[in-house]
Structure formats: structure tokens, C-alpha cells
């Protein structure tokens, strides 16, 4: 009986914690709305539907990257090679369409590149047991050089109009790519939160040894997460090429840090197990909206990094403090309850 009570209390404690994690995403959305409202008070044009749709369109790149990265972060690893993957796949597929190749081929090639880079990362991290931070940092450097060698250090320009057009197609007034990405985010969210295999990712990040004991193929799922991250980075590369219309050798330089920051802002924990793709996507919208918000506020653009940096620090610190306090409280209640049941038994 006592044992059962104990388990019951544990379950209550657990549900409290999941309540808090849900709260995290909720707070991110509130935060995004507050940003829009605050900027909207100063300049009401910012709240125009056109601008909101525009912000989603501008953040597509970041959303795709952040969503892919979330898979890796959920398993408790990190991938900072995404900027390199983006650049290389954009360059290779850019050359294909520039030289008259089909767009379909370019997409396939980009995906293969992303998957390969992810596979190498995944194998290095899981089988050679290299710390994922170091592995992907080294990979970032290597992939960048490969891009320079491939493009001979030149920009890739003169992409055909039909390729550039892809990012501009509108459906019912909304950007087509935007609709696809939003749908994909929702599907991936349902997969990660509701399907058995989707839950594996956060299970691994939450408790790796526990996941092994439960029979989850940890190594395979970690590699899969890196492959997914690589593929989404290469898709982001395609979006980049289509939106910008040319690919410089520095395409995607430093973007990895912005994307990690976006995921963290969206409530994804770098220690694994906590977070969702929806949160990461909202974080990505926040990060990329800072720029346009500054424009609407008539604040010089050079404030961008300061604002995003302090935003990240403040939000994460506040989050951790709130989470810890809630945890402590839950623990205390659990202890109290245990003492009470003991008394009753006596």
C-alpha cells in the first residue's frame, strides 16, 4: 500500500513537471506576442498582417534549421555544423541549377549531402565517442573548406529565375514554402510528442542509461537525429539559395549560434530531454523578428546582437530559476505527502 502511494506521488510529481514544460512553450508564445504588441504600440504597421506574414517568411530558414537541430538537442547532443551544411548544399545545388540541371536533382543532391554530413557526425559522436560539440565544430570547419574548394572561392550567381521563384510563390496570400514548413513543424511535433518512436528522442536525452535499459536503440536514434539535422540544414540551404538568389562563400557563416540561441529561447534544453519543435520554431521567429522589429522601432540595426544576446541570457536564467523553484516545491510536497501517508499507516 505504502509502495503504491509512493508511486502515486511520483506520478503526481511527474505530471507537475510535464505541466511546467508545457508552460515553457506557452511562455515562449506569450513572449513572442508581447514583442509584437510592444513594437506594435510604437509603430502599428508592425502588426499589419502583411508584416506578420513577412516575418514568418523571413524566419523560414531559421525555423527549418532550429527544428532539425531540436532532434539532436533532444537526445542531449549538439550540432554546430549546420551553417557549414547549409553553405555547402546551397553551393552544390546552386551550381546544378545554374548550369541548367533540374531543380528536382538539386533538391535530391542537397538532401544527400545533408544526410551524409549528419551520418558522419552521428557515427563520430556515437561510435567513436567524440564529444558532439567538438565533432561538429571540426566538421563545420572541414565542410566550409570543402565548400571553398568546390566553388573555388567564387560566388555562385545567376541562378535561374524559376528557381528563385520557388520561394516567392503565394497560396491564398501566404507564402507556399511557409505553409509547407508550418505543416511540417506541426507533423513533426505530433510525431515527437505522440508517437512511440518519436518519444525515443527525448527519452534518450532525459536518461540515456535508462533508455538503453528500456531497449531503445540509442546509438541508432542518435545517428538518425544527426541525419535529420543535416537534412534540414541542407533544405535550409535550398531555401537560402532560392530566397537570396546567390551563394557567397560565407553563406550561413555564424548562423549555427543564432539557431542554437533560437532553440534555447524556444524552451529546448541543451542538456537534452526537454523541448519541442514548435517551441524551437517560435524561438526562431523571435530571433529573426528582432531585426525587423528594430527597423520598425527606427533603432539602428547594430543593436541586434546585443539585444538577442541579453534576451537569451535573461530568458534562460529566469527560466532556470523558475523551473528550480517549482521543482523544489514539488519535491517538498512529495516529501510532505510521504510523511503524511507514513503517519496514517502507523
Amino acid at each position, binding site marked *: 500500500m505504502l509502495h503504491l502511494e509512493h508511486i502515486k506521488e511520483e506520478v503526481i510529481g511527474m505530471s507537475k513537471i510535464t505541466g511546467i514544460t508545457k508552460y515553457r512553450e506557452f511562455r515562449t508564445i506569450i513572449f513572442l506576442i508581447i514583442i509584437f504588441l510592444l513594437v506594435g504600440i510604437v509603430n502599428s504597421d508592425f502588426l499589419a498582417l502583411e508584416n506578420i506574414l513577412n516575418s514568418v517568411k523571413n524566419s523560414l530558414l531559421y525555423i527549418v534549421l532550429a527544428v532539425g537541430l531540436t532532434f539532436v538537442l533532444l537526445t542531449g547532443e549538439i550540432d554546430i555544423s549546420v551553417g557549414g551544411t547549409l553553405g555547402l548544399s546551397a553551393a552544390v545545388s546552386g551550381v546544378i541549377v545554374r548550369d541548367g540541371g533540374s531543380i528536382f536533382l538539386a533538391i535530391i543532391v542537397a538532401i544527400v549531402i545533408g544526410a551524409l554530413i549528419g551520418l558522419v557526425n552521428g557515427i563520430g559522436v556515437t561510435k567513436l565517442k567524440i564529444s558532439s560539440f567538438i565533432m561538429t*565544430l571540426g566538421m563545420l570547419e572541414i565542410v566550409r*573548406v*570543402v565548400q571553398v574548394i568546390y566553388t573555388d572561392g567564387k560566388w555562385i550567381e545567376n541562378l535561374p529565375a524559376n528557381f528563385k521563384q520557388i520561394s516567392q510563390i503565394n497560396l491564398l496570400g501566404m507564402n507556399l514554402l511557409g505553409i509547407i514548413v508550418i505543416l511540417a513543424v506541426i507533423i513533426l511535433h505530433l510525431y515527437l510528442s505522440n508517437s512511440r518512436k518519436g518519444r525515443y528522442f527525448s527519452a534518450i536525452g532525459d536518461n540515456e542509461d535508462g533508455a538503453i535499459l528500456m531497449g531503445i536503440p540509442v546509438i541508432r536514434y542518435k545517428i538518425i537525429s544527426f541525419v535529420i539535422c543535416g537534412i534540414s540544414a541542407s533544405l535550409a540551404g535550398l531555401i537560402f539559395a532560392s530566397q537570396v538568389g546567390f551563394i557567397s562563400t560565407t553563406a550561413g557563416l555564424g548562423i549555427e549560434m543564432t539557431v542554437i540561441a533560437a532553440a534555447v529561447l524556444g524552451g529546448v534544453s541543451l542538456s537534452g530531454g526537454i523541448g519541442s519543435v514548435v517551441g524551437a520554431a517560435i524561438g526562431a521567429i523571435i530571433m529573426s523578428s528582432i531585426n525587423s522589429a528594430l527597423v520598425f522601432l527606427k533603432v539602428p540595426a547594430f543593436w541586434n546582437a546585443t539585444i538577442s544576446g541579453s534576451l537569451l541570457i535573461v530568458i534562460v536564467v529566469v527560466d*532556470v530559476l523558475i523551473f528550480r523553484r517549482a521543482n523544489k516545491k514539488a519535491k517538498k510536497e512529495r516529501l510532505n505527502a510521504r510523511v503524511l501517508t507514513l503517519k496514517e499507516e502507523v
Partner: protein
Amino acid sequence: MKSGMLKKIPKWNLILLLTLVGEIIIFGLINPRFWNLNVLLNSFNDFVGIAIIAFFVTFVVITGGIDISGGSIIGLTSVVTGMLAQFVGMNIWIAALLAVLVGGLCGLLNGVLIAYAKVQAMVITLGGMLLYSGIAIVLVGLSGTSTYEGISGFSQEFINLANGKILGIPHSVILFLVILVIAYILLHRTRYGRYVYLTGINQNAADYSGIDTRKIITSTYILSGLSAGIAGVILTSYLGSSRADFGAEYLMPILTAVVLGGTLITGGKGGVIGTALASIVVGFLKLGLQMGGVQTQYIGLATGLLLITSVAFLGVPGFKSKVKRFLTIKKDRGGNLHA
């Protein structure tokens, strides 16, 4: 077991030393100019900043943390030095000193948030990285100077700080050695250094034995920030101008020096001698490749591979057993608990 592991570190240093000798011989055979001592000593100018930061990032990594904000602190301190000296009209040495202290403040912020608020080091230093370089950009933006040209017009005395020589030895070499000695004594010859190791090996045990690990952790980030401040001043002096984007590409080389130097990224083991040797190995590698006619933009391939392979080589249970496990991986399909 433990003594075996402690023995392993000097052995790795020996390997690094041999690599260094090998590099000098091979690159010298490719281009005999590499054997000119002056060329080698002058090349310290190119990596002294990386090495100085790497010495103290080694401290941070030994405690089990990580600091990726060093490169941004370089940019910030460079801009602060320039603005205080050129716009406020302060004495350049006082300006430089204040800039180093600003670096220390950045480190303090990192350290307090990591040690006391217990937020992940990676997240805080990532935020710090954005924030510090952001402040540098804002300072440059507000002052109305061109971002590209930066602030210049420093006195010859200050320029000499990095470019001068004493008895034919470049200042950068002397600085490298002086800071190395300071870091070495702090980490390997004082009680503080032992506390740094103990914090990294087992923070709870360290706490229970009466060490204020939060203070120890914070102090390592302050040291790392101060060293980045020094590197910022040196770089400003070496290049004769202040720019916000100085140090922006230092993240990778700093971590390469630390990790290649034999410090475990998971904490608890490592040392500054290894970091020093590794930074020279990487510095000479770049120099040698450049002198061998390899374009600068391709050199990242070599350093990236070096980083990955050295970590694979130095990994926790030893590379050999890992290769063995890699080959026999099919036997334990469920993964193994020693992960």
C-alpha cells in the same frame, strides 16, 4: 588505474613535442625558410592571442565547463581600448588596463550565471558571445567610426607592445611564456589549482570537502575573461587598430588548442603545458602550410581534422579499445552501459 591515467598526460605532451619536432623537420624540408629561427619566433604573433585564452579556457574545461565567449571579448576589449584612448583621450596604458578589466567583468558575468544560477555553461557563454560582440558593435556604431577601418592612430609605444623585440626575441614570445608560467603555477603548483581539478572530477565531493566550488568555477571564467581581455589588447597593438570583429574566428582554434593539448572536454583532466604545446603545433602547422604554398582558406581542413582525430585519439577509455569496440559493435546491439 588512477596513476596510469596521470602518467598518460605527460606521455601525450611528449607526443605533442615530437609532433612539433616532426613539423619543423618536414616543413623545413619543403621550405628551408621554415628553419629560420626568426621566422618561427615571429609566427608567435599570429597565435599568441589564441594561446593566452586557451591557457585559461583549459581551467574552465577542467572544471567541466566551456567558454565560447573568448573571441567576442577580444573584439569588445579591442574597441574599449580604442575608444578610451582615442575618444576619451585616456592614457593608452590605463585604457588597456581598463579594457582587460572589462574582459574580466564579462568573465564574471559568465561565471556568476553558470556557477550560482546553475545555467549550462554552453548556453550562457553563447549568450555572452552574442552580447559582448553586440556591445562592441554598438560602441562602434554609436561612435560613428567606420566598422571596416576601425579606430586607429595609436602611439608607437603601444604598437610596440606586440611588435617590439627584446634581445631579438619578439614580445609575443615573451608574453606567451610569462602567461604560460603564471597559468602553470596557478594550476599545477597551488592549492587553488588542485581545487580546480577536484571540482571537475567530482563537484559534489569537492563541495562536501569544504571547497566553495561555485567560487572556484566563477574564478575560472573570470580568468578566461581577463585572458581574452589581454589577447584583445595585444591584437589591437599588433594590428594597430581596434575593430569589433577581432577574434570572431578564434572559437575553433582556442578549443583546438585546449582539446589537442590533452584536456578532456568532460572535465577533470588536462594541463596548460599540453595546451601551450598544442597551440604551437597548430600555429606552426598553419605557418608551414602557408609557406608550403597552401592557400589560407584551405588550412581549416587540416585543423578541423586535427581537432576531431585528436579527440577520438584521446577519448575516455583510450582509442584502441574504441576501435576494438567499433569493430565488434554488432555484438552488443543494445548499446552498452559504459557509454
